[in-house]
């Protein structure tokens, strides 16, 4: 959800986009995060990766591939759609639902790592934690994000951060992944200096 919320305004709103991470940068970052996950979880013991749709899912698969390449461990990968647990459903039109796919073996007693592309207000993660509780009781839940852009509205932090990216609330962060967008890259889009580029409303939080 974070990615969809972050990328839609980009295509709608005119502005100046600058690339902050290239495809090679993303590859290196994902590789480093995979190592950090292995380090922190003693070789991935009991780990389940759950991507938050849309772009958290391919990221979760990429992390699993890197972990496989480094350590030869196959981590279960799934997806978790937090949409129906969001607290801002009434703030805009109805959101389409995404796929929730809990891997065989479930989440009970596991180390669940939620994977998302952008961490912003923290509300998506809060919703995802509630959604996760419907599927079982993990031993630990951790959070991995490609980009942390700040502006948290809830007491939530990530355990694995690809890139800390200070932004203004008026900017939007667009993560592009080849599985969905055809090419990799992270862009920051600033609104044009005109007064029409009003600050992003609460509906744009991810």
């Amino acid at each position, binding site marked *: 959800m974070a990615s969809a919320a972050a990328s839609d305004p980009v295509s709608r709103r005119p502005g100046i986009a600058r690339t902050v991470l290239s495809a090679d940068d993303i590859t290196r970052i994902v590789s480093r995060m995979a190592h950090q996950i292995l380090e922190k979880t003693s070789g991935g013991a009991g780990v389940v990766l759950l991507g938050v749709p849309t772009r958290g899912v391919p990221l979760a698969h990429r992390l699993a591939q890197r972990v496989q390449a480094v350590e030869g461990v196959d981590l279960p990968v799934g997806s978790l*759609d937090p949409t*129906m*647990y969001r607290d801002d*459903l*009434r*703030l*805009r*039109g*109805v*959101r*389409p*639902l*995404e*796929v*929730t796919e*809990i891997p065989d073996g479930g989440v009970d007693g596991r180390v669940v790592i939620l994977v998302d592309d952008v961490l912003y207000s923290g509300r998506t993660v809060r919703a995802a934690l*509630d959604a996760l*509780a*419907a*599927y*079982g009781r993990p031993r630990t839940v951790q959070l991995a994000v490609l980009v942390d852009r700040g502006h948290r509205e809830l007491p939530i932090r990530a355990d694995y951060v690809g890139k800390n990216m200070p932004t203004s609330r008026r900017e939007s962060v667009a993560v592009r992944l080849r599985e969905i967008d055809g090419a990799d890259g992270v862009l920051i889009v600033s609104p044009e200096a005109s007064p029409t580029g009003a600050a992003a409303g609460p509906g744009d939080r991810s």
Partner: protein
Amino acid sequence: MKRHLLSTEDLGRDDALLVLDTAERMARVAEASVRKLPTLRGRTVVNLFFEDSTRTRTSFEVAAKRLSADVINFSARGSSVSKGESLKDTAQTLEAMGADAVVCRHSASGAPHRLATWVRGSVVNAGDGTHEHPTQALLDAFTMRRRLGRVDGLAVTIVGDVLHSRVARSNVWLLATLGASVTVVAPPTLLPIGVSSWPVEVSYDLDAVLPKTDVVMMLRVQRERMSAAFFPTEREYSRRYGLDVDRAATLPEHALVMHPGPMVRGMEIASRVADSDRSTVVEQVANGVSVRMAVLYLLLGGSGEVS
């Protein structure tokens, strides 16, 4: 998605597919260990049933409760409706109580359409007279898609009392929208006059149609709506238009047998056919909850503005 769900005739292909896709996600919720979602917390759904219905009302009630909506059941019997209150006054009462959605079943065709002009909330047609029953058609299409992988290109045969059946009408429009080819089979007396304008083939010979059928949908003979003799005897009807074991054997291997319920075993469908592997009768009930969750979510899940 529009604000109301009143018929499948004016339901576009994109909206219909959105309901089916959303229902697919809702069906997955049934697999979670906690089968309740907070999505519609604080919203009120009123079940306004002027006609008896256990199956549909319960299905809507379960769907709304799984989404954490508050459900008020309002049946005509034992309410002020039996004291002569008009539909409009009832609507205003519900309005004053703050209903976000009204699920309406009425014996008069078009009643939910009228209701929709009087209330601020969303209206879902749960069957009006002999007109439409859109959520039934949506759950039928959903069942076909889950079992056979698609609706587009399927040959669907609807058999029986088409004249009085709102299920048949809703299915005809929805299936046409989704790209299935529909054949209706019935005695001439149980076909409506306007059937030639429907997007269907008409046949009077069930045996000729069955071998080319992917899905056969049996309809109940609605005695309560019959004011005249539409066929000579039940036995003759059953012989010509009932799905017995021998007839069912002429269906292709993959073909499904559907029935919206309630079934009259031995009349339009033989017990052994209704209980066979190709029968989806029980599945249709489970799928009904998923589809109604999807409809309620799509109507009430957002800010109410058309996005």
